[in-house]
């Protein structure tokens, strides 16, 4: 009995580091795509096997035409602030050009923190062995083709194929 208890305690103490992460990006705003990219790149840097699956509006993050011009929402975003910290009036956020300007500013600030543009971020992930996939259903829905997507995209796969990539008992699926 006693040895059993000791063994039990040992088991709890033993660390079981994460071996694989599968990250799903389904939204196309600047912050959603970057959350995915930072988490994916961070995992690759830690030596964790990494698969990233872009679906629905998240496809904007790997579509050549859009990936380096992502926007952050200036309306319906209660966390949006003016430079200096004052609340950002929703009415102002709706004016033409405001979202573009604010998003450009955000990208500039991110650049100052050495956060790369999306195309380069994807290259960093694949350079370390991370894999980037596009969702077949969403690609068909948006009438895209493989050539419209970043060259870092490995392939267009179904959700079933994605789940097959998520095997292993130290694997986590993250939905950003």
């Amino acid at each position: 009995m006693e040895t059993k208890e000791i063994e039990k305690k040992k088991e709890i103490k033993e660390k079981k580091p994460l071996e694989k992460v599968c990250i799903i990006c389904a939204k196309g705003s600047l912050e959603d795509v970057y959350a995915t990219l930072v988490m994916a790149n961070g995992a690759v840097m830690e030596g964790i096997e990494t698969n990233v699956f872009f679906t629905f509006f998240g496809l904007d993050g790997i579509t050549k035409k859009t990936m380096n011009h992502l926007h952050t929402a200036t309306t319906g975003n209660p966390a949006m602030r003016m430079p200096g910290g004052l609340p950002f009036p929703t009415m102002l956020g709706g004016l033409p050009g405001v979202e573009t300007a604010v998003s450009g500013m955000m990208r500039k600030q991110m650049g100052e923190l050495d956060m790369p543009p999306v195309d380069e971020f994807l290259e960093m992930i694949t350079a370390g062995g991370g894999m980037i996939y596009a969702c077949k259903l969403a690609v068909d829905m948006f009438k895209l083709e493989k050539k419209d997507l970043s060259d870092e995209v490995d392939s267009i796969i179904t959700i079933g194929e994605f789940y097959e990539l998520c095997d292993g008992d130290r694997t986590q699926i993250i939905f950003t």
Partner: protein
Amino acid sequence: MSVKTIAGLEVNVSEEGYLEDMSQWNEDIAKEIASEIGIELTDKHFDVINYLREKTEAGEALTIRKVGKSGVVDIKGLYKLFPKGPLKFSSRIAGIPKPTSCI
């Protein structure tokens, strides 16, 4: 913090094995830490290590992006030299603190 003997020298290391004082570092220490990790150091490794030490001395925060743009090695090459820990392992071997950057 604890004291550890690496390559015949007593050095202060953090819990995770990073040197606390980068001036205690020498190439033999680098080689021993590297072999603990499972990396055999070549001249190319030392190019990266020296770059990391220079930048750290200058007080600059390191990211793999910065190393990739340094002209010393590209990011793919960095992963080849230090598999599964391009910044973590290289920093530990270079005798500099654990990187605090997320990129």
